[in-house]
């Protein structure tokens, strides 16, 4: 454990306007799991891309097993024994598992041998996978197995994992950890990036913490509390959202047997979703990505029309209505993808405010827009939700992820919804902005609105939900009170092992 596998010294990379990495140095030893911690924008991704040969540093050196290491492209890094499991962007939906794996290898064997080797490795590490399946049809957990097996087939010395557990159920996380420990025992070093501090405490022996591109600390995660690590990442003391115990009121939104075919290829069909949401309540909907979250949001926002009786707002059937008609009745929604779905990237914040606010904020007059009023509305969202921007004339694209998310959530909350549906409200948002958004959602519920939060972040759901339900393969489990749910119970709900049939009889 004393010899160093990979040593980084003084790595610096600047992009126009931002310094992504500034003088970053640390060492990784064989057989250790090394955590890389930091908020979004702290420079973790740039750093691992540098190691993988996708980004060339402006200054600084790396040495791998004592020899200078400066991969000019991923091929060179792979040849040197560095493999990487990506968070996004590295699988091809229309190709099958074996083809996807062949693309990540330097010298893939002929397809028939490759299929045999895939079966072999997948059995050895307990990651079952059929080489002939099309990747677009796989679950998130299975997709990740494809990526991991792609790396394992190359016998890596260093495995880089970029937020591998963000899309997994707790049971799948256990399987992954077992695989990683096995690799570690075989002497493979693992560089592990995650936001989930408890996982890091369970898995890693070293942690390097980045803030604004600089190394701000190192620690042994087994002996440091999650709260201390979080505060090192953020640099300030964290505010935990708080709320009064809610008294649920009357039912405002009722879904009855909501069923819909998938709106696009590789989408998920919604299947017989029945649930009621009451005034002043936060309903948390968890689930692994790709189990119908996007489709449920489309069905609720009105982007996807369904049978009119399937969605009822205050007793009125609205399933057939388009988004603006639903907005005027008090049902608002904020989708997951903020750039391009919740907001038009190249339009100003004022224009973006008009796009969803025109009905409820009365921003048009006989077909003409009331720009002065729209600007005032946008300014009020900016002021109330602490959006850091020069003004309402800035384009949505120019805002950072957290600031834009505060804007798109704030825009809906400022329209005083009776029901607000949000999908992944704090995805890719730094901890302080996330806490702010959660608090705003809780305040909205306290003021009497019903809030549905769809999220893959279980900690977030446990923090703010009154009741919790899980989406699995387009079906929704019966909601259960969030208080007192254990991780195991949630895992079983996410895995689909809920008693659906019994629930139907009761209903």
């Amino acid at each position: 454990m004393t010899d160093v596998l990979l040593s980084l010294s003084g790595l610096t990379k600047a992009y126009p306007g931002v310094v992504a990495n500034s003088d970053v140095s640390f060492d990784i030893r064989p057989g250790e799991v090394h955590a890389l911690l930091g908020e979004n924008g702290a420079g973790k991704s740039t750093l691992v891309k540098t190691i993988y040969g996708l980004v060339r540093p402006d200054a600084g050196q790396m040495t791998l097993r004592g020899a200078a290491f400066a991969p000019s492209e991923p091929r060179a890094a792979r040849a040197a024994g560095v493999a990487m499991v990506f968070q996004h962007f590295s699988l091809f939906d229309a190709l099958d598992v074996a083809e996807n794996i062949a693309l990540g290898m330097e010298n893939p064997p002929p397809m028939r041998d490759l299929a045999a080797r895939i079966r072999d490795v997948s059995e050895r590490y307990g990651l079952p996978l059929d080489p002939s399946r099309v990747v677009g049809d796989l679950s998130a957990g299975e997709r990740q197995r494809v990526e991991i097996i792609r790396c394992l087939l190359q016998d890596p010395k260093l495995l880089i994992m970029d937020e591998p557990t963000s899309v997994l159920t707790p049971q799948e996380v256990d399987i992954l950890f077992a695989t990683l420990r096995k690799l570690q025992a075989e002497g493979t070093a693992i560089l592990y990036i995650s936001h989930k501090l408890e996982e890091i405490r369970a898995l890693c022996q070293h942690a390097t913490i980045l803030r604004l591109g600089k190394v701000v600390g190192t620690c042994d995660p087994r002996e440091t509390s999650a709260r201390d690590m979080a505060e090192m990442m953020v640099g300030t003391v964290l505010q935990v959202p708080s709320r009064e115990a809610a008294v649920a009121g009357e039912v405002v939104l009722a879904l009855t047997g909501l069923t819909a075919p998938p709106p696009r290829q590789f989408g998920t069909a919604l299947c017989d979703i029945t649930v009621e949401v009451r005034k002043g309540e936060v309903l948390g909907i968890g689930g692994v990505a790709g189990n119908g979250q996007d489709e449920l949001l489309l069905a609720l926002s009105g982007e996807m029309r369904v049978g009119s009786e399937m969605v009822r707002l205050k007793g009125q059937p609205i399933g057939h209505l388009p988004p603006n008609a639903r907005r005027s009745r008090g049902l608002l929604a904020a989708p997951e993808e903020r750039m391009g779905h919740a907001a038009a990237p190249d339009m100003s914040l004022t224009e973006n405010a008009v796009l969803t606010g025109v009905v409820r904020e009365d921003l048009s007059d006989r077909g003409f827009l009331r720009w002065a009023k729209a600007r005032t509305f946008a300014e009020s969202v900016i002021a109330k939700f602490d959006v850091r921007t020069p003004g309402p004339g800035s384009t949505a694209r120019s805002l950072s992820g957290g600031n834009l998310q505060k804007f798109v959530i704030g825009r809906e909350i400022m329209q005083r919804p009776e029901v607000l549906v949000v999908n992944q409200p704090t995805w890719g948002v730094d901890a302080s902005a996330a806490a702010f958004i959660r608090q705003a959602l809780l305040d909205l519920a306290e003021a009497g609105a019903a809030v549905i939060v769809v999220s893959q972040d279980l900690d977030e759901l446990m923090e703010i939900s009154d009741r919790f339900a899980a989406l699995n393969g387009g079906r929704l489990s019966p909601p259960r009170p969030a208080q007192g749910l254990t991780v195991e119970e949630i895992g079983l709900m996410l895995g689909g092992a809920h008693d659906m049939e019994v629930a139907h009889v009761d209903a």
Partner: protein
Amino acid sequence: MDLSAISPVLLLAALMVAATPILLAAIGELVVERAGVLNLGVEGMMITGAICGFITAVATGSPMLGFVGAALGGAALSLLFGVLTQYLLSNQVATGLALTLFGIGLASLLGQGYVGVRAPSVPKLDIPVLSDLPWLGPILFRHDIIVYLGLAIVAAVWWFLRHSRGGLVLRAVGENHEAAHALGYHVTRVRMAAIAFGGACAGLGGAYLSLVRVPQWTEGVTAGAGWIALAIVVFASWRPGRLVVGAFLFGGITVLQLNLQAARVQIPVEVLSMSPYIVTIVALVALSARKGRGSAAPGSLGQSFHAAR
């Protein structure tokens, strides 16, 4: 009306000749689109190939050198499109349309002195034994070499896309260019190669019109064949096998309706003239309507790629 004047053997033989230019242009565009690039300039590249091939053939007296010149001309024009869209990141739809307009203008400029000139004729292959077979001989084995070249290119493209490493990389680039880049493949380089191949194929298709089918230079000689090739690629769901079906169907109905017109069938000429388009579209829509893998467009089709370094 005299349907007995239509000989099925001659009809089928003519079908292969009529389908060849569209088949050539379409197989090139299929490769381009599988790499994720939408080049709407097929018509312009075809007609540029037609005149480049014609000029080369007249100047050298060799029709085979003419086809080489046509492929080079088509590829050169397509590289203009490639530089604009892949390096300067211009919009692919607008650039492709502009390429068509530019190609048509360029071809008529280059062709100024060639109107009415006769091109050296392309020899028909006379394969011993095979071409003497009854029925099959005239239908399959008495064509010029380009007909067989076209089919050989389709077969080669099918094999390349299905079984070779390079084909897998090309499909990966077209399916998800971000992922292909993350794995270290050169998205722009692959696409430029595909674009040049598409241009060369379109050039060959154009020259087949000006050197074999017509065979002389007239302005607008391609008469929309490039647009048909584009449509066939889409309706064939980007698969080489279906592409052959589409091109032969279109070629066949074209020949048949010309024969029917000559036989004075009691159907309005306008209806006969539009029939190849309608039948081809209906047949390929029916083929691609079946759900399943491979019927979808490449995931990154028509999107510009810019790597952040």
